[in-house]
C-alpha cells in the first residue's frame, strides 16, 4: 500500500470532524472521496498532507508511519496537494508559482517545468501573469501544476471542479487521467460525484466524518443508495449531472 490510513480521528476544538476514518490508496490508482458538505473530505486531505493534526489513529506512507511528520516534510516524502480553493499565490507569476512547487528540492527543474507546461499549454502562454489575476480554471491549472512540481508519489486534489464551467471540468478531469497514466497516484476529493466516479478506480463515500461505503467506482455509480444520495437519484443520468458554476 502506498498510503494507509487507519482509524484516523481529527478534532476542530471540541468538534470531532473525522470519527475514525480508515482508507487505503494503492500505487497507480485513482481513488476518490465523495460525500456531502461537511462529510470530512477536505479535512481528510488536509490531515494527510499535514495541515491538520491527528487526534488519534495513524497515517502510513510507503510503509512508514508519518502521523507526526510536519507538513513541509511530507512534501519531500512524496505527498503533493492542490488545496481547497486552489491556494494559488496571487502576487507571484504563473512561473513563480510553479517554482514554489519545487521550493523544497534542489536540482535541475527545466524538465519538470517542461512537463507541466506540456500538460497545461495555457499556462505556458501565461507564464508572466500574476496568479491573482487569472480565471478560476487557470488558477486550478496552476494549483495542479504547482503540486506536480513537488514530484509527488501521490497527488491529493481537493475539489478541482469547484466553481468551474462544465466544459472546463471535463478538461481538468482529462488532465487528471493523463497525470495518472504517467504514473502518479491520485487521491481526489469531489462534490461532483458522477464525474469523479467515472474517472476513479475506487471510491469511498464519506458521511459526517465516517466512511459509509467503499467499493470500485463503477459499482457505486450503479448503487441505488449512492445514486439517490449523491447522483440526483432517478431524476437524471449521471452524465447530465451539472457542476456548480460560480
Amino acid at each position, binding site marked *: 500500500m502506498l498510503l494507509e490510513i487507519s482509524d484516523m480521528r481529527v478534532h476542530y476544538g471540541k468538534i470531532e470532524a473525522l470519527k475514525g476514518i480508515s482508507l487505503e490508496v494503492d500505487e497507480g490508482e485513482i481513488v476518490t472521496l465523495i460525500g456531502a458538505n461537511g462529510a470530512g473530505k477536505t479535512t481528510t486531505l488536509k490531515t494527510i498532507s499535514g495541515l491538520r493534526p491527528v487526534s488519534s489513529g495513524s497515517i502510513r506512507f510507503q510503509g512508514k508511519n508519518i502521523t507526526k511528520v510536519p507538513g*513541509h516534510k511530507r512534501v519531500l516524502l512524496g505527498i503533493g496537494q492542490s488545496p481547497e480553493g486552489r491556494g494559488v499565490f496571487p502576487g507571484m507569476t504563473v512561473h513563480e508559482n510553479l517554482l514554489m512547487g519545487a521550493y523544497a528540492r534542489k536540482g535541475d527543474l527545466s524538465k519538470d517545468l517542461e512537463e507541466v507546461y506540456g500538460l497545461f499549454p495555457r499556462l505556458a502562454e501565461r507564464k508572466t501573469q500574476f496568479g491573482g489575476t487569472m480565471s*478560476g480554471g487557470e488558477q486550478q491549472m496552476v494549483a495542479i501544476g504547482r503540486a506536480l512540481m513537488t514530484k509527488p508519489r501521490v497527488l491529493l486534489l481537493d475539489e478541482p471542479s469547484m466553481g468551474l*464551467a462544465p466544459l472546463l471540468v471535463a478538461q481538468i478531469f482529462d488532465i487528471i487521467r493523463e497525470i495518472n497514466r504517467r504514473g502518479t497516484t491520485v487521491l481526489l476529493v469531489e462534490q461532483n460525484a458522477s464525474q469523479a466516479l467515472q474517472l476513479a478506480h475506487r471510491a469511498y463515500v464519506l458521511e459526517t466524518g465516517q466512511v459509509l461505503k467503499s467499493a470500485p467506482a463503477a459499482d457505486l455509480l450503479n448503487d441505488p443508495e449512492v445514486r439517490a444520495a449523491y447522483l440526483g437519484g432517478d431524476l437524471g443520468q449521471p452524465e447530465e449531472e451539472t457542476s456548480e458554476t460560480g
Partner: protein
Amino acid sequence: MKTAVEKPAKSGNPLTGARRGFGRAMDRVRDRWADAPWWQRWTVYVLLIGLALILPSDFFASFMSPHTHWPSLLFNPIGVYILLAVGLNIVVGHAGLLDLGFVAFYAIGAYNMALIGTKFGWNFWAILPIGILMTAVSGIILGAPTLRLRGDYLAIVTLGFGEIVRIIAENTDAIGASRGITNIPHPPNMFGLEFLLDPLPYYYLLVGVVVAVIIFARRLERSRVGRAWTAIREDEDAAEIMGVPTFKFKLLAFFIGAMIGGLTGVVWASKVIAIQPANFPFILSATILAAVVLGGSGNLPGVMVGAFLIAWLPERFRGLADYRILAFGAALVIMMALRPEGLLPSRQRKAELSEGSGTEASAEVGK
C-alpha cells in the same frame, strides 16, 4: 479572453483622473527601475546617499523645517522612524504578520544600551551587538508561543507584549522604574566626528546604519527566505504544502524584525542621555505601522517614504500650532483614500490586493 490588467473605465471626476495618472506614472517609474541596468541603479543609489549627507544643510532646513531644528528632526523622529519602519516592514510587509507591539523591541534595545552603558561603562560599539542579540532573543520569546495564532489574534498578543515590556520597565526599580535611566554614554568619537550634543554626527551614524540595514533587507527579500515569506503572506497553508517550514520562517521574520528594532533603540539611546518607559508608548507602534501601510507595505522605498512623511508632516505643520495634528490626520486620510494600496506599492502587492477579480466564471466559457 480578457487579459486582467487594470484598465478602469474613464471617470468624469478630475480628482480620480489625477489619482490614476499618478498611479500610472509611479508604475512606469517602477517598471523602468526594474529593467534599469546596474550602473544606472548604482548612480541613483550614490546620488541618494549623497543627498542624505547634504540633507541637514541650511538650504533644506529653510523649507523643510522652518519651525524646528532640522538636523535634530532628521535624527529623531525621521531617521528613527525610517529605521523602525524598515524593521517592521519585514514582519508586516514580507511575512504578513500583524505586529502591534513593535515598540517593545525598540525599548529593549534602548534599555540594553542604557543599562550596560551606565552599569558597566561599556563602549557603544560593544553594546551594539549585545543589544541586537538580546532583542532578537526577545523576538523569539514573543514569537515561539504566539506564532501559532493568525491574523487578528496575533495582533492582540503582540499588542499585549508591547504593553508588558513598557509596564515591566515602569515597575522595576533596578532599571529606574518610571524615572528611567540617565547619563547614558555617547558613542566614542570617530572619523573626526564628536558625539556630544550636536545631532549631526548621530544623523550621519544613522544614515550609515540605515544604508547597511537596507542592503541587508534587500538581500533577504531576494533570497529563498524572501520567497518563503512571500508564500506565507499570500497563503500560509499552500506554503506549508510546498515544503516551506512556515513556523520557522515566521519566527525568523520576528527575529530579524526585532533585531532592527533593537538596533534602532541602541542608536537612539546613545544620543538622548536619558530614557524613560514613557518613551515607548503603544501609539509609537501604531505610528510605525501606519508608516508601513501608508508607504506601501512590502516595498522598501515606499515604506521609507511613508515613514519620512509620518515623521516629518507633524513638524512641518507646527506653524498651525494646535491644529497641526488635525492637518496631519487629514493628510493621512487623504493619502490613504487616494492610494489605498499605499503610496508606492510593489507590483506584487497590487496583484495580491486585486485577487478575486479574475475568479469569476464568466471568463472561462468562451474557449
